[in-house]
């Protein structure tokens, strides 16, 4: 009996679900080549190249970039560049910090007994069981109350006034990312045989060297997947960012959301397409790397 035999119903259902998953994305990409500026209906591809953009009403007749008119348009958009920069700055900073402290916490929770352990472990489940919006408005209240107090007490004015910005977004992101890092690393540590560390110590390595040369390299794949999860959570986050961002700290999701409530040109589709492409390539690269890693280990 072939162990991988599946009934035709299962296969058909799987194909339908994949179709459901991908149809909207394909549509999104298609409309990024739309000649229509209003982007309500698909008015065909942009037909020609020309030195300057030629419009006929709301239709783009020709453009220096031809088919890729909206991508060129996007490249010229400084707001997008700024939002992309903010998004990456926040995601990278928050990922580094949450990975470091999250891994430390995972080691502590998996290896040690200490007084505040039950509390530490329990607090990890908060972001999982409490809706994001509840955390978002809570953090907003905290920051606004704290900043209000601080600004008044120290008579801060002008640029010195504390306000919401990249720092508050990053700090809030770390708060909901750390638990995921910790839980992922903890799960990996569960399968970790202590005898490897004992062997290292037996061979003359002290605690720190043992961690650096043996424990860390061995749990690195777990840490990496924790970090990766944290990074994507940060990139994708809308709700927490929505409540904690301020002037100058707009991220891409916030920027796109802002556009959706106004006029939508195919530029948004171009931006989405670029985003999807970047994510696709990043995930693909990671998969290839992981596969190579696991092959060299087996």
């Amino acid at each position, binding site marked *: *009996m072939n*162990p991988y035999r*599946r009934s035709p*119903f299962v*296969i058909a*259902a799987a194909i339908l679900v994949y179709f*459901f*998953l991908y149809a*909207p*994305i394909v*549509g*999104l990409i298609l409309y990024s080549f739309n000649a229509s500026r209003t*982007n*309500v209906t698909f008015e065909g591809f942009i037909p020609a190249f020309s030195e300057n953009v030629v419009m006929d009403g709301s239709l783009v007749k020709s453009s220096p970039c031809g088919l890729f008119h909206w991508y060129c348009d996007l490249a010229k958009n400084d707001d997008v560049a700024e939002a992309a920069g903010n998004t990456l700055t926040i995601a990278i900073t928050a990922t580094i910090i949450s990975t470091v*402290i999250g891994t*430390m*916490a995972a*080691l*502590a*929770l998996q*290896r*040690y*007994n*200490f*007084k505040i352990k039950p*509390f*530490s472990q329990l*607090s*990890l489940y*908060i972001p999982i*069981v*409490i*809706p*994001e*919006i*509840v*955390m978002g*408005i*809570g*953090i907003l*209240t*905290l920051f606004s*109350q704290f900043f209000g107090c601080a600004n008044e007490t120290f008579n801060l004015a002008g640029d010195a006034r504390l306000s919401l910005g990249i720092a508050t977004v990053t700090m809030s992101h770390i*708060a909901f990312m750390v638990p995921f890092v910790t*839980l*992922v690393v903890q*799960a990996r540590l569960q399968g970790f045989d202590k005898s490897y560390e004992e062997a290292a110590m037996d061979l003359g390595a002290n*605690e720190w060297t043992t961690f650096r040369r043996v424990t860390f390299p061995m749990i690195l794949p777990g840490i990496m997947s924790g970090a990766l999860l944290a990074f*994507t959570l940060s990139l994708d986050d*809308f*709700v927490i960012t*929505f409540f904690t961002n301020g002037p100058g700290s707009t991220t*891409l*999701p916030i920027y796109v*959301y802002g556009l*959706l409530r106004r006029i*939508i040109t195919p530029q948004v589709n171009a931006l*989405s397409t670029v985003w999807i492409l970047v*994510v696709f390539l990043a*995930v693909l690269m990671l998969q290839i790397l992981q596969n190579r890693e696991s092959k060299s280990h087996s």
Partner: protein
Amino acid sequence: MLQRLRENKSAQGTLLALPTTVWLFVLLIIPLILTLVVSFGRRNPDGNVIYDFTLDNYIRLFGYSTDCPDGQASCFDPIYVNILGRSLSLAFNTTMFVIALAYPLAYFIARSHPRRRNMYLFMVLIPLWTNFVIRVYAWMMLLRKEGAINIIIGWVMNALNIPFAPLEMLYTPGAVLVGMVYEFLPFMILPIYTSLEKIDNSLYEAAADLGANPFKTLLRVTLPLSMPGVVAGTILVFIPVMGTFIVSDILGGRQVILVGNLIQRQFLDARDPTFGSAASLILMVMTLIVTYFYTRKFGFGEEIVVA
């Protein structure tokens, strides 16, 4: 000093866990306490909070109104209760649809050749990693009066010579449901897949050997063993659906107002943080109650982490 730390395992553990614990305490637990405090307060005309102890916000949430027709002093206004109920039923329906769609796909992946599993999973991850807001936008384009769905139905109807007026799908509860299902589908596929993948093939063989047909095997072996994945997936879907406001904002317009929209508006448009805080605490309590009873019945698997 070093020697003493080396022998004091408890101190080592505390030190390692301290940064995370403090961070979570300051940015998750204190905010929750603050929300509780604010929810008992009143707002002044500028939208600032006056700390007080009044249950007005909660009373208002549960239907007490002083803004009544016929000049009554007070009356029952179900607007907020309806919003809470609508959110709950939407979250419930979304979860059901998501399970129905996710299970066959997860099963398909788990039972495919190990060499192809990664690729199939990868195909689930791509839409998941495409931004949340972008995914709502994609549906907005599809569901519009001039959108692809109407165009395709139009073609079909045209070919069948049936008169057809484009359907108004955007800004309906159905649109919000479809959007929610689409947004959270991958969060159900991954944990179910994880628990299905753990089922050893010999169990299927044993079931067949003992005389179970494929349907009975599914019912008596596969489903029970994959319950941890379904439970984890439900938590990962139900809770965020309860609190999301973008999907209803964009696909529901002003027609479909959920708790999330209510809270968001109190903080931004209506500027009544005290009422918003009360609503958000009610939302939290509702999700906690559901999670508590649900996990108490089925357990809280480690599958929660894999997504």
